[in-house]
Structures are given as C-alpha cells and as structure tokens.
C-alpha cells in the first residue's frame, strides 16, 4: 500500500511536484530517450523506415476517403509500428474490447475518421491536413498495419518525428478508449490526469477483490463452496421471500436478493 499512498500524496500535491520539476534543471527529454530505453520498438521502426522502397499495401479499408487538399508541402512515409504479434492481437481484439463499451468505435480507424472530418470542416484550403490511414495487408498470412502519416505544414518531416507522431496518435486513440471505460474520465483532459484516474480505478478494483475474499473467508468455514446445497431454487425463493416479508423496508436485503438471482442466472 505504500505505493498507493505515495501516489495519493502526489496527486494532491501537483503544484509542489511541478515546482520540484522546474527546480531540477535538466534538458528536456525528447521521445528519443524513451525509445532508447525500449530498444525493441525503436529498432524495428528505424529498420523499417530504412526499407522505404517497400510497395504500398494492396487492400485499403473502405473508410479511406480521398483528401481534398493536395498541397506541395506534404510528404508521406509509411511506417510499420511495433512488433507484429502485438498488432495481431490489436486488430483482433479491438471488436471484443469495444463490445462492452457503449460509445467506442468498433474500428481503429473510426476515431481517426471522425477526427479527420472535424479537421476538414475546420481547415481552409490553404492549410494541408494531417491524415492517417490504417490499412491491413496480408503478406504470407501476417497482418501488418501500415500507417501513412502526412506531415503538417511547418512540422518536421524526418523519419524519427513521423514515427514519433504515429506512435503518439496510436496511444491517444487508445487513451480515448480507456477514458470511455473508466467512469468519470470523460470530462478530464490531459493524459496525466486520465492515467491518474485509471490507476485509481485499478487500485480500487484490486482492493475490492481483497476485501471480498476476506468477506467470503469469514462467511465460509470451509472454502469448499458447495453450490448445489445453497442454490436449490425452492430454498432460495422461500428464504428470500421470507426475508422480504420481514424486512420489506430494508433495501439492503432487496439488493442482496437481486444479487443472488443474478448469480444463479450467470452460474447456470
């Protein structure tokens, strides 16, 4: 629990934290140091960036729409991010994850699509738009999503910052999914705060598991939870009806009765 307390104190002392950070005089850490520490993604990204002569992917999903602006200042590069097993899971698990989420999009390119349409409405024809297309190719049974990134006007166009930006966009899309999942995160803006909420949520869930296992241990003298005795249907109905008659104003009992019935429903 020391780490939890530590973090709790940290979140309430944001101001002091920021002051301490300003006091510590250090050069700004570019994304390069982070990627230097994690050798794998950087190596792969750089290696694949050098093999720029690879052919463009054949299949594009139908959500790709043509860009209206064709400025002379845009450059394109294709970046294959990260390692492939992660992305296979990414592509396959997106629909599973989003099934349980109300507002999230079933397609990884959908938040990008909505982002781009908003951007199109906002921008005039003078500026060039930054657009991203995620496409999946089937090369010998492997799925490698290609990310085409267009450089915005006035931004650096070397391969490192493009890869950096692609990575950041992906992470931001993921963070949006997380925001929808964790209650109360929708109104918060800023990655650090959202991460704070997520950490609190995970910690509270883990604490609830501990607490509930303690409750169960106290209730059951032997941990062989024999459900057949407990969950014979007539016994349940009679007992809970009896309880309701005695305690019809007691909402806790009603709530518990509901939980019993849900448990039976899910177990059988």
């Amino acid at each position: 629990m020391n780490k939890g307390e530590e973090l709790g104190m940290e979140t309430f002392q944001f101001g002091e934290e920021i002051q301490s950070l300003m006091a510590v005089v250090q050069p700004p850490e570019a994304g390069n140091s982070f990627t230097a520490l994690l050798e794998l993604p950087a190596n792969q990204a750089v290696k694949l960036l050098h093999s720029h002569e690879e052919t463009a992917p054949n299949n594009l999903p139908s959500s790709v729409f043509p860009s209206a602006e064709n400025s002379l200042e845009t450059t394109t590069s294709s970046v294959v991010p990260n390692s492939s097993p992660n992305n296979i899971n990414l592509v396959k698990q997106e629909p599973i994850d989003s099934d349980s989420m109300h507002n999230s999009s079933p397609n990884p390119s959908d938040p990008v699509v909505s982002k781009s349409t908003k951007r199109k409405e906002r921008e005039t024809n003078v500026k060039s738009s930054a657009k991203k297309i995620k496409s999946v190719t089937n090369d010998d049974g492997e799925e490698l999503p290609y990310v085409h990134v267009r450089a915005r006007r006035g931004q650096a166009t070397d391969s490192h910052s493009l890869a950096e930006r692609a990575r950041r966009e992906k992470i931001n899309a993921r963070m949006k999914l997380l925001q929808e999942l964790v209650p109360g995160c929708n109104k918060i803006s800023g990655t650090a705060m959202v991460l704070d909420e997520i950490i609190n949520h995970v910690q509270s869930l883990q604490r609830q598991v501990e607490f509930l296992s303690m409750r169960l241990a106290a209730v059951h003298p032997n941990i062989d939870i024999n459900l057949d005795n407990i969950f014979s249907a007539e016994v349940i109905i009679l007992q809970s009806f009896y309880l309701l008659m005695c305690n019809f104003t007691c909402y806790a009992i009603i709530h518990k009765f509901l939980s019993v019935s849900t448990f039976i429903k899910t177990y059988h």
Partner: protein
Amino acid sequence: MHTSSKLTKEFTKKWLKGLQICCSSKKDMDVLERKKKIKLCADIALASAKNATTSWSIALISEAKKNDENEILVDNLLGPESRFKQQNIIRQMNSCHKRVRSKKILKKSCSISQRMKKMGPPKSNLAAYIAKRLVKKRTQVLQRLVPGGESMDEFSLIKEALDYILSLRVQVDVMRNLANATEVLNQSNSSNVFD
C-alpha cells in the same frame, strides 16, 4: 455484452473448481489462510479464463507457478488442452524477466548520468517536459499495477490495462454476488432456526 457473460461463466466455474481442489488438500485453515486461498483461486481462474490471449494473464499464471505449492492447483485448474502449458510461453516470460532486469539497470545508470550533468535550463519547452515527466511517472505506476507490466511498452501497456480492468470488474461482480448470496442465506437460515 455477451463476451463478458461468457467470461463470467468461465471464471465462476474455474474458481469453484479450484476452491474444491484447495479444500481437499488441507483441513482447518484459519481466516487469513482461507482468504489467501480464495484470492489465489480467483486470480488463477480469471487468468485461465482468458486462455492465454492476453499477456497479463500469462504473467499472472507464471507468477503463481513460481510458488511450488500452487503448482498442482494451477495445473489441475488449467486443464489439459490449455495453451498455457506450452513451454515456449514460459520461456518467453523468463526472457522477459531478463530484459526487465537489464532495462532497470540501464534506467538507473541513465538517470544518474542525467543528474550529474545539470545543464542550463532550456526554458523553451518546460511545460511539455513537465507533462512528459508526469505521464512517465504514472505509466511506471501503472506498470507496477498491471501484472506483467514491467516488460511492456507504453502502447501495449494501455491495451493490457483495458483488458485487465474489464476482467477485474467481472471478478469483483462474481465475488460480490456470491458473498451477498451466502450472507442472505445465512441470515435467513439463522432466522428460520429461531422461529
């Protein structure tokens, strides 16, 4: 949410099966031991209900296997066809631990060398720098929370955290329902006795 109800059923079945296995081995455990066993069974059941699709579940299982007395429980619980039994997964986890250790050493040496430098303050990008530092600290904390998070980069960490949160919710719901159910029944039993 049909996937989560499927997960619920799987988890419940495996958890109760694991508890039965636990109970057959020892008798007369005190409350704390029972609590530990219950929690352990719940964690292993949750991870095995995922059937090796996520890396946090693999990490959880391999952690549980390190303890020798849990070995039998884990093997029985996982079942014969489970993909966890593949040796290469376990080998991958071992190599991940080595990578984690070398990363930690590298991080420590990097941070020390940076503190030694103490260059002049480039105030141009101070806000972005502070934001990055805050995010980095929080990702470190999240890495410690999610099982197996030490060996993940930022992107897959977020994905694993998503999945982990969903599964934890399922676990909490099932346990809470069972706890409420047994309390209700105990109450009604005791009140029946007194009538």
